Each structure stands twice: as structure tokens, then as C-alpha cells.
């Protein structure tokens, strides 16, 4: 099972090699797409993981036991789709393919599972309909 999310960990957890445990103890295949650690040692990791469903559940429980918050991508990036005019300007900068146009009906399609939270689409939208916050 494959999924993409951001983990947010408090300073006390930044000393624990969380990713190491996910890989060694829960057989996660981890791809880190984006990472920040603040001066206060609070950190965020955007990761794509692949694991057996039961291991995935156990691994996420392990993270939570260390006060790690798991934030699905669709809570960090939103597109106000009901006001969208489907011009396509945002797709010009979305090299991950999360924002694309359906070439049959020319409707904007947003697939948050492909998003890498680069944020380039936010200023590219001429109607300012995209919000993205890596936090």
C-alpha cells in the first residue's frame, strides 16, 4: 500500500531516528520529498511510503506514540474548485503532475497524492484559488 503524507514531530522526537525505525522495524519503503527542521528542532517531513497494510498501520501507530502528527496532503493543499475557470495556468508549473487538465473535457484535475508541496502553483493561479502550507 502506497500513501503520501507529512509528519510533524516535536523537538523531543527529533533526536529519534524515526525514518530508520520505519524502514527497519516496519519494512517501509520511504521516499522523502521535502523536509524542514526549525531552530527549535520541530520538524516536518513530506514522505511517500509503501508498506504492507498491517505494517503501515503499526508504523503509523509507532509515529503517533512519539507525539508525531500525521497530516494527509489534501489538508495542506487546497484548490477552490468551484470558482476555478480551468484556464490551466497552474498546470504550467506543476511538474509533479498533481495539477493537470483532462484533455477531453479540459477540466482541472487535482491529485493530491502526486503533490510534492513545492508551492509554485500558489502564485501561478490567476484567481488565487490555491492554498498550500507545509506546516
Amino acid at each position, binding site marked *: 500500500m502506497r500513501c503520501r503524507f507529512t509528519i510533524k514531530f516535536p523537538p523531543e522526537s527529533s533526536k529519534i531516528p524515526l525514518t530508520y525505525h520505519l524502514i527497519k522495524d516496519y519494512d517501509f519503503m520511504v521516499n522523502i520529498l521535502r523536509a524542514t527542521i526549525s531552530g527549535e528542532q520541530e520538524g516536518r517531513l513530506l514522505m511517500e511510503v509503501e508498506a504492507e497494510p498491517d505494517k503501515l498501520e503499526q508504523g503509523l501507530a509507532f509515529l503517533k506514540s512519539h507525539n508525531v502528527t500525521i497530516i494527509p496532503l489534501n489538508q495542506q493543499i487546497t484548490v477552490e474548485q468551484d470558482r476555478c*475557470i*480551468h*484556464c*490551466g*495556468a497552474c*498546470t*504550467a*508549473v506543476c*511538474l509533479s503532475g498533481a495539477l*493537470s*487538465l483532462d*484533455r477531453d*473535457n*479540459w*477540466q482541472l484535475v487535482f491529485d493530491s497524492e502526486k503533490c510534492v508541496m513545492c508551492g*509554485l502553483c500558489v*502564485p*501561478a493561479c*490567476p*484567481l*488565487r484559488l490555491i492554498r498550500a502550507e507545509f506546516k
Partner: protein
Amino acid sequence: MAIRKSYEEINAKIRAGQAVVVTAEEIIPMVAEQGAEKVAQTVDVVTTATFGPMCSSGVFLNFGHSDPPIRMKKVWLNGVSAYAGLAAVDAYLGATEEAEDREPGQTYGGAHVIQELLEGRSVHLEAVGSGTDCYPLREWESDITLAEINEAILFNPRNAYQNYAAAVNSSAETLYTYMGVLLPNLANVTYSTSGALSPLLNDPEYRTIGLGTRIFLGGAVGYVAGHGTQHNSARERLPNGVPLGGAATLSVTGNLKEMSPDYIQAAVYEKYGVSLFVGIGVPMPVLDADMVRCLAVSDADIYTGLVDYGVPRRARPVLAKVSYAELKSGHINLNGRRIPTAPLSSMRKARQIAALLGEWVRSGQFLLQEPAERLPLGKSLTSLNVKEGC
């Protein structure tokens, strides 16, 4: 015998509710299957449309007179300056004019005022005058709505470009342009026409378009007021008559009070400024088989130049010639490299407009108007140059 139809014959069918109307996309496979002569017999009107950012847009406003009256010399609407060098309470609000008092990231301009008026919202009017014997008042401030003012006449000096260059950026820096965000090192391409559905690409030599042509404008009935500014019909053309880049333009006008915010939309291009999406639909009369051959133009028959915005000069290099079939596919190949493409004008909205205009014609309420004067052919551009001795 070859079929020929007059405007009068087509309008008689429209009045009778018997006109056969298709869009400029729908006619393409029909002509491929049946041939132009057959389609010229069966189809009466073909609708074309575009919904793109058109900076050269704006609205003439007449606010009505205050008591005591004022001759407005300077006018602001929600902090956006409108040109008031006209009679007492007339002004022209340009879409790209920006309010100066906004925080960074809160870009707001004439296009936003137009949109708020259309949405029925109140807009704050401020005006100053010098005080004359006939117009003694020096200052005025009040809220206005679109319903309360005398006139709001959309008058756009340059819309609906016949073709437009696609944009790319060879420089090492991201460029923020009216063609959207252009990533460095040729990482993306943007383009901005509706291709085979675009009005002027379906009548490349302006047989049916000119001053007086009745059109769909912003959700209401509007008119072509003549050729637009920067009309460049002398542009090099393909054998099918389609110009290889920006060529003809339209000046259009209509009553803003009758328009809809569904087809007029304010826009902000990062680090460039404000623009206005304008929905335009042009119905084309099927006069004969030659007209059908023009209307059958497909994305594969329309080419444009790929212009490098990484070179900050008037004459930017053209790196390649690309078709709209390639541009609309989602990527082009440039010297063996696959580069993703993105439109800036909405095909989805353009299709909605073409369909809606088709309904208007079919229902008998929208008649075709032969232009009083066709758009000029062979007109080229001049440029602004430094002169000796200045």
C-alpha cells in the same frame, strides 16, 4: 450546383427556429466525412469562442450627476484610478489599472472593480473636481452599484487575438509574465488561444467579421467595433490563410449591465499585474463551401511561433514552429527534448460559450449581422523607436 447562402436566408431560418448550428470543433469531423459542399448545404451557422486573459479591456462609466454638480477631474473606484478626462461624470476604467494602497500580495485592479460591479456589489467612488461656475462641487464620495449608475459600457480596444505566440524561457531564472510563470531552462511552454475553436482562426481573412458583427460578449449580446489596436493582418500566413502568430485583433463593445460574472473574470499574474478574462463568442454564417473549408480548420492546421521570453527584447527569438495539436497534447518536442505545455485561456469555458451561443441562435433570439466594414487585410505594425536629435 455549388451552394450559396445569404445573411438574409440564414436569418430567415434562425427566425423560423430551423437553423442548423454546430460549433467550430463539431464541424471538423463532419467535413472530413461528408465534404465541404454537403456540409455547406446542411449547416447554417458555426459558433466559435474564446475565454482568455485580455489586458486591453475596460469600461466607460457614467455615474449620474451629484447635487450640487461636480466636474470630475480625478476618479477612483475602490482605490483604482479611472481616466476622467472626459465630460463631467464620465470615466474610463481600465482593467489593468492597479490600486496603489494595497499590501504586497493583495494586487487589486480595474478588472476586480468590473467583476465586483457585475456581481452586484457596492463599489466606493471618490472624485475630485476643481469647482467651476457650472460645476461648483470639488469633492464627492459615495458607494455605487452597477444598477444605480447610468451606463457601464464595456469597450475593449484589443481582444480575441487571431493566434498568439507560445512562450518559453531559455534563461536561468524563472520569469513571471503575462504568459504565466515560465520556468528556467526551457522547462515549460504556455500558449493562449482556443485553437480550432478560436473566432479569428476560423475566418482567417475576415469574410464575415468586422465593424458591426453581432457577438457574444461576457454573457450578453455585444458587437465588434472594428479592428482592434495592434491589428497586424499582414502577418506571414500558411497556405490555408492562417497567420503564424499574433495577427488580427478585435475591438469589442457591449452593455456591462447585461453581462454575467460567469463570463468576465478578474485575474492576477504574479509580478506582472492585473488582467481580465473575457468570454467572446462569434457566430459564423455558412455562406458557401469555401467558408466551410475555413471553419473546418483543426488544431493540426494551426501553427504558431515558440517565442523565447528569456531574451528581454522587442524582437524575441522564435525557437520553433509548433502546431496547436502538439500544444494541446500536453507536451511538445523541441530538438528532441520533451517539454510540458499548459494553456492560459480556458478551453472548457470557450466550449461553454460556443454551446450557449449556439442555443441563442437555435432559439431564434440571436440573428447574424453582416459587418458594415470588414477587418482590414494587409495592415502591419509600427514600433516605437528612439529618434536622432532627441
